[in-house]
């Protein structure tokens, strides 16, 4: 059998020290997976060197050439050899430094690793010397031949023929387009990390991306629009939240602006782009209840945290971090985002413009805020002169639809009074409420909106009422791993507060003795298992609450006005006022939008007016 041969061969070998080039190739195996990984390491070095401009030139998807030029501090002639040697870095000197590292790099591995799997040339010039110096390397860390070279202040690293000497790796490379796609995504990710750095990306001599550096906050929306698409900012909520030494800022997409792919999710910890399970979980949980199933939220978020509280040395490519206070970070993220999403009400941001729009309205950050005006009004029929009751249309009604062309003397006064979702005009097809507000027309899906209102009320009532629990006549025994059983015991009190009472009955088993009364008849075992899995992974679980919410949501669905029932104008106005006062009223319980705005510009466009 071949397995025997495989095992027997190395048994006879003596132990020996590996040559430096091979050591570097092994290290490259971890860090340099594909051309984009080279770009990542080199751009990080440019950031660490204080560069204001980074130029990335790529040929043939990065396999033939990657050249990165920066205008950072440069490397001293004497240090060039060291820069290309493993475990040599200018960024940390001690364990204390490592534990609070603020630079992107610290492992001192990137340059030697890359040089061991590609033909690398490093050219650099510091501020106070007459010329630059150049050196090539092959990972063997010897015979550095340093030559003078023309170069402005800064550093250029040229990487040719990636994986030329490691055919096994080369085989895993994808098509040129795919590899370049990865590089482009990476550069975008890095560009969102540092607004103060300008970028230029070229592929096969063609410019693909050019971003100016921006010291001011004001320039950010532009870069975000360029990278995330012009709609993003219109459809996003600004987040700015600070608590217990943590700061979270950035943008989260409205739940209705979700995507089928997780491709617009950018998260930075102290400017370092990361993908982290705990972060992902906290964000998903914040979107819970408002996101259509399987949809992916969109976000660009920056977490600022004392470097001593994150361990960045958790992943060779530094893609993951470990938070020293994972639970605290999770809760912080969840509550910041949950609050932002729940607080989104009509009138606070622009909503969907359902018209053949081509221009982008002003970005969200600059949007005049209407939140100053009271959001909640008594739900009475407003006695407005132009609003006749019932279905009869008057000339006044029609005139209100075209305020731009038929100026109305009451307009200015009226606009200040109009609540964000305006006043109802008619009920269309027994489903949609047509209303008018200061900006134009509003269309509301009456059933979906009412369902959300009922649901939010039920959640509030349920939470206020204390949790009724139903002890089981036939308790449910669950077999668990010992670790999970320990966990169940540890969180016993927490679970009991939510209505689940457990008793440890053995090393690997627990007995469920009572369940929340609302959940009787549901699959208790699965609920407990999933909850424990969450607790194990994230130190917290919203699962029980989610399941309770599902029950409340289906109750809400039954308790809401059916589509098809004709609503009167006072009923519709009452509903609009309730929507304005209800959290998450912008989405129905399944995450679909409950209302859209057709503003006067959109209406004008429909009739080609003003073109």
């Amino acid at each position, binding site marked *: 059998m071949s397995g025997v041969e495989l095992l027997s061969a190395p048994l006879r070998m003596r132990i020996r020290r590996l040559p430096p080039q091979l050591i570097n190739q092994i290290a490259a195996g971890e860090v340099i997976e594909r051309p984009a990984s080279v770009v990542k390491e080199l751009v990080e070095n440019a950031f660490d060197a204080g560069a204001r401009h980074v130029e990335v030139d790529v040929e043939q998807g990065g396999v033939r050439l990657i050249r990165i030029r920066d205008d950072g501090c440069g490397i001293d002639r004497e240090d060039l050899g060291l820069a290309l040697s493993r475990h040599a870095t200018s960024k940390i000197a001690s364990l204390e430094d490592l534990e609070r590292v603020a630079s992107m790099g610290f492992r001192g591995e990137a340059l030697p690793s890359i040089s061991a799997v590609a033909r690398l040339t490093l050219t650099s010039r510091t501020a106070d010397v007459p010329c630059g110096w150049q050196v090539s390397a092959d990972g063997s860390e010897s015979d550095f031949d340093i030559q003078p070279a023309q170069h402005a202040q800064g550093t250029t690293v040229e990487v040719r023929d990636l994986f030329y000497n490691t055919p096994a790796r080369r085989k895993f490379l994808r098509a040129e387009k795919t590899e370049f796609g990865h590089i482009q995504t990476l550069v975008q990710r890095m560009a969102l990390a540092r607004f103060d750095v300008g970028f230029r990306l070229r592929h096969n001599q063609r410019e693909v991306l050019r971003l100016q550096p921006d010291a001011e906050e004001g320039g950010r929306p532009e870069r975000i629009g360029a990278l995330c698409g012009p709609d993003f900012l219109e459809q996003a909520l600004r987040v700015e939240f600070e608590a217990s030494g943590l700061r979270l800022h950035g943008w989260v997409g409205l739940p209705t602006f979700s995507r089928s792919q997780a491709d617009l999710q950018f998260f930075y910890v102290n400017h370092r782009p990361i993908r982290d399970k705990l972060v992902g979980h906290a964000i998903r949980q914040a979107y819970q209840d408002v996101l259509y199933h399987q949809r992916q939220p969109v976000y660009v978020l920056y977490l600022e945290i004392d470097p001593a509280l994150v361990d960045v040395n958790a992943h060779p490519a530094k893609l993951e971090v470990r938070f020293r206070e994972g639970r605290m970070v999770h809760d912080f993220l969840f509550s910041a985002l949950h609050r932002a999403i729940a607080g989104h009400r009509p009138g606070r941001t622009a909503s969907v413009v359902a018209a053949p729009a081509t221009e982008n309205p002003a970005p969200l950050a600059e949007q005049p805020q209407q939140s100053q005006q009271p959001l909640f009004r008594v739900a009475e029929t407003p006695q407005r002169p132009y609003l006749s009751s019932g279905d009869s249309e008057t000339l006044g009604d029609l005139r209100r639809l075209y305020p731009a062309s038929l100026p109305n003397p009451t307009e200015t006064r009226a606009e200040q009074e109009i609540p964000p979702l305006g006043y109802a005009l008619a009920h269309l097809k027994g489903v949609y409420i047509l209303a008018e507000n200061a900006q134009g027309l509003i269309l509301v899906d009456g059933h979906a909106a009412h369902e959300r209102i009922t649901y939010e009320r039920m959640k509030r009532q349920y939470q206020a009422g204390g949790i009724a629990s139903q*002890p*089981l006549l036939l308790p449910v025994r669950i077999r668990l791993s010992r670790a999970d059983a320990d966990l169940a015991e540890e969180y016993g009190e927490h679970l009991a507060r939510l209505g689940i009472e457990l008793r440890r009955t053995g090393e690997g088993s627990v007995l469920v003795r009572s369940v929340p*009364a609302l959940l009787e008849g549901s699959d208790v075992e699965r609920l407990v298992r999933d909850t424990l899995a969450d607790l194990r992974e994230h130190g917290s679980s919203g699962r029980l609450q989610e399941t309770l919410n599902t029950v409340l949501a289906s109750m809400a669905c039954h308790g809401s006005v059916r589509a098809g029932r004709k609503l009167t104008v006072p009923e519709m106005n009452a509903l609009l006022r309730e929507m304005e006062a209800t959290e998450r009223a912008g989405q129905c319980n399944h995450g679909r939008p409950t209302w859209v705005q057709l503003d006067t510009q959109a209406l004008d466009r429909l009739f080609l007016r003003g073109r």
Partner: protein
Amino acid sequence: MKFRILREDLLLPLQQVIGVIERRQTLPILSNVLIEVEAGRMELAGTDLEVQLVANTDMEGKESGRFTVPARKLMDICRLLPEGGELAFDVKPERVSLQCGKSRFILGALPAENYPNFEHGDPEAVFDCEAQLLRRAIEKTAFAMAQQDVRYYLNGLLLEIRQGRIRAVASDGHRLALFEDVVDGMPDVARQIIIPRKGVLELGRLLARVEGSASVRISANNVRILFGTFSFAVKLVEGRYPDYERVIPKTACRVVVVDRHELRGALTRVAVLSNEKFKGVSLEIGEGLIRLRAQNPEHEEAEDEVPADVSGEAFAVGFNASYLLDAINAVASDAVRMSFTDANGSCLIEDLSDSRYRFIVMPMRL
């Protein structure tokens, strides 16, 4: 094959057999009824592969043969024909024509050989009892069966024979109903079987109009019950039923005797303002009365009182009103006895005049 049969002789058994035939079928032949004619007798069979019902009926004639036709269509035709009419069948391999007066119908037939065979297997325990005893056993317990619980064995009825007795037990994990009676001539074997929910409900329906005795034949994976002109068979649920005897409270420290109708009236009234999902109602049991209260999430409240004969200390306990109502509705006597071990323990509900059935309901913490 040709034969004639009176409309009523065909319609009544057909209406029973239809009960086990599922409306929507992926296997076309399962929406058919299997008809076998032999020596002046007709046998109609329907199955959903879990449950099988065979009904016998008399007819004239000497011919014999088997065929299958769409069950619902045949029933609709019979139903709509005039009363007392006589149906003349002419059975061909693929088509069955029938005529009654001036009305004629041709139905598509499928070969009887293809009709799924319900394997009965060798009986391991056989006993006879009154059909009405079986009916009562189901009537008093079936309501407590679970519905689509992951503990699949709870979605059925436990039938236990032991020491000359028969027991029926059903529980959804929150409450339990138990019926037990003595059966003369019960063989000296002990067996526990679990009959699936659909079979239990169907059997209960069929037994409603049957007099006389029934013969029960339990085999390895099904049970067959013969009564009147019917033979009813159902596949058993595999698995062990939980040890229900452990949950039957043994010692009561508080006993309440209350008029069943009054308690039911008060429970129904206050439940109007309880949580619509779990119907929580609290009972304060004090000297000589029970005070019932309910509150819903909108903070609306209801309160009612019924006189009761209370022994033991005063205490308060919460219940899902529907569970309590199911149990007291199954009681036949005017007064019910509720026995409690402690406020968190289960409550035993009994009929004062008939000790054959008992109900256990778990209180709820409100």
